[in-house]
């Protein structure tokens, strides 16, 4: 509809002067009526610009024509005709431009309206989606929080259980050891060699179980009895460990090569435990008859943030097959019989727990040239986690 209006207007605007001229020639009328003709055309123009449709315009044109009807033809000149024609053309052009503008404006508006509606719908749907997502996330967070709390509680329970069980297990065990000790001391002459052998074996088993419980306890203490992470000099700690192991190192004739170790933020007691376990392993797992050799080194990687501390304990012992390299850090995982290498199979599990409590990790690789290379990666600085109250917790004895 709007598209056709400019064309009708153009037609009317162009046709009007011809109508006027034809009418003027056809009928002789009063020449004094010319101003009326002009004002008539002006009225049509104003009406057009004011927004009248083609129907009303035609009515106006008709009225103008009727007015001209009574104008005498002698007053018609070519100048007058040209003026009228120009007026008509201008009128048509204005109309055309105006309609185009209106058209474009309307198109723009409907376009905009459409886009606004579209965006509103989109927004509404994305709002709904967001709300749904937010609700889902909230639920997930709530679930996670409660799961975390449950996990924490069950962890704590487990640790309490481990500690209590270990203490309670120690009690009867201590009696077994004491009484077999008494039996051995005071009545061994009443036993035959076989009897003494049995007694020695049961005493030995009780001893092993004591060690097992001790190790289990120290495993559970890594988290329950952890201390805040403070700056510690690993070189100093290593010196302490080596002095503890002095006899053992001297007895085995082992060579221990030590590089300067960095300072890091850590739990000093646990670092000592970690280094001790790794060095004891390095001393222990050598082929029969071989002299143990251990290399301890460490450095802080400067580029990383937080600075990463690499600790390495290498040996040229029997090494660890690749397929066992994850397993050895699990509890009670032993690769050798008790006759070959003694131990409870907890030492490396403790090492891993210590590394993890410090936000780090431990792994083992093959040392170039044979043997094992234990690598501990610890972040240099980190916010210490809240340490559980260790001020006084009664233990069962």
């Amino acid at each position, binding site marked *: 509809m709007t598209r056709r209006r400019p064309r009708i207007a153009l037609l009317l605007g162009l046709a009007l002067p011809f109508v006027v001229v034809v009418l003027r020639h056809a009928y002789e009328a009063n020449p004094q009526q010319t101003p009326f003709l002009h004002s008539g055309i002006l009225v049509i123009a104003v009406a057009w610009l004011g927004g009248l449709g083609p129907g009303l315009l035609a009515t106006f044109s008709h009225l103008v024509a009727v007015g001209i009807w009574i104008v005498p033809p002698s007053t018609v000149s070519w100048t007058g005709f040209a003026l009228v024609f120009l007026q008509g053309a201008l009128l048509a052009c204005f109309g055309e431009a105006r309609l185009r503008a209106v058209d474009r404006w309307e198109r723009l508006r409907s376009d905009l309206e459409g886009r606004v509606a579209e965006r509103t719908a989109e927004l509404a749907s994305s709002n709904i989606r967001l709300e749904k997502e937010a609700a889902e996330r909230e639920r997930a967070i709530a679930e996670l929080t409660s799961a975390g709390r449950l996990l924490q509680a069950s962890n704590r329970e487990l640790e309490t259980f481990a500690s209590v069980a270990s203490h309670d297990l120690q009690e009867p065990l201590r009696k077994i050891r004491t009484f077999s000790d008494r039996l051995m*001391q005071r009545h061994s002459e009443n036993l035959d060699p076989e009897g003494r052998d049995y007694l020695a074996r049961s005493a030995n088993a009780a001893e092993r179980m004591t060690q097992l419980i001790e190790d289990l306890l120290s495993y559970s203490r890594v988290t329950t009895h952890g201390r805040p992470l403070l700056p510690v000099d690993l070189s100093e700690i290593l010196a302490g460990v080596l002095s503890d192991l002095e006899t053992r190192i001297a007895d085995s004739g082992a060579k221990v090569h030590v590089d300067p170790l960095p300072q890091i933020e850590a739990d000093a007691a646990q670092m000592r435990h970690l280094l001790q376990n790794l060095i004891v392993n390095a001393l222990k797992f050598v082929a029969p008859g071989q002299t143990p050799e251990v290399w301890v080194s460490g450095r802080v990687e400067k580029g990383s943030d937080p600075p990463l501390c690499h600790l390495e304990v290498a040996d040229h012992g029997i090494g660890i097959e690749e397929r066992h390299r994850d397993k050895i850090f699990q509890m009670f995982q032993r690769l050798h019989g008790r006759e070959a290498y003694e131990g409870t199979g907890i030492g490396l599990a403790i090492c891993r727990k210590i590394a993890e409590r410090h936000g780090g990790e431990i792994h083992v690789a093959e040392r170039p040239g044979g043997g094992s290379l234990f690598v501990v990666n610890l972040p240099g600085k980190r916010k210490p986690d809240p340490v559980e109250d260790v001020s006084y917790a009664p233990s*069962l004895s």
Partner: protein
Amino acid sequence: MPRVSLEATIILADDDPEDRMLTRQALAEGEVANPLFEVADGEELLDYLAGRGRFEAAGPAPQPGLILLDLNMPKKDGRQTLLELKQDPALRRIPVVVLSTSAAAADIAHSYDLGGNSFITKPAIFDDFVQAMRCLGRYWFGIVRRPDEVVGHEAG
């Protein structure tokens, strides 16, 4: 040769009869010949000292020379007993040696905090236990002067 006092009584408070037996034997083998009186928990110990409950007929006990106190006992455990002993003006001077299987730092620290005079972790090897009891006897009944030897100084 240090002077060895044999009159002062040792009170042993331990709920476990086997532990009491072992302590008794270790004391005997360690040549600590003082009279030994055994109770099974903290409540009994305090009752005995005050002459209450089943010790009412006997009246208040003479001040012992030494108390050997286990930490984990039913009814009234060693910690609570130690606290009450050291808060009582009439009893706080009696030397108390905590004799426990525990080697936990918290137990040791807490015992001294409460005013315990020594803390011994019971050795699992009997010979070591005998050695410990021998030293204990020498120390408390040969070397130190105990409060029960001091006459004429009222408690308080």
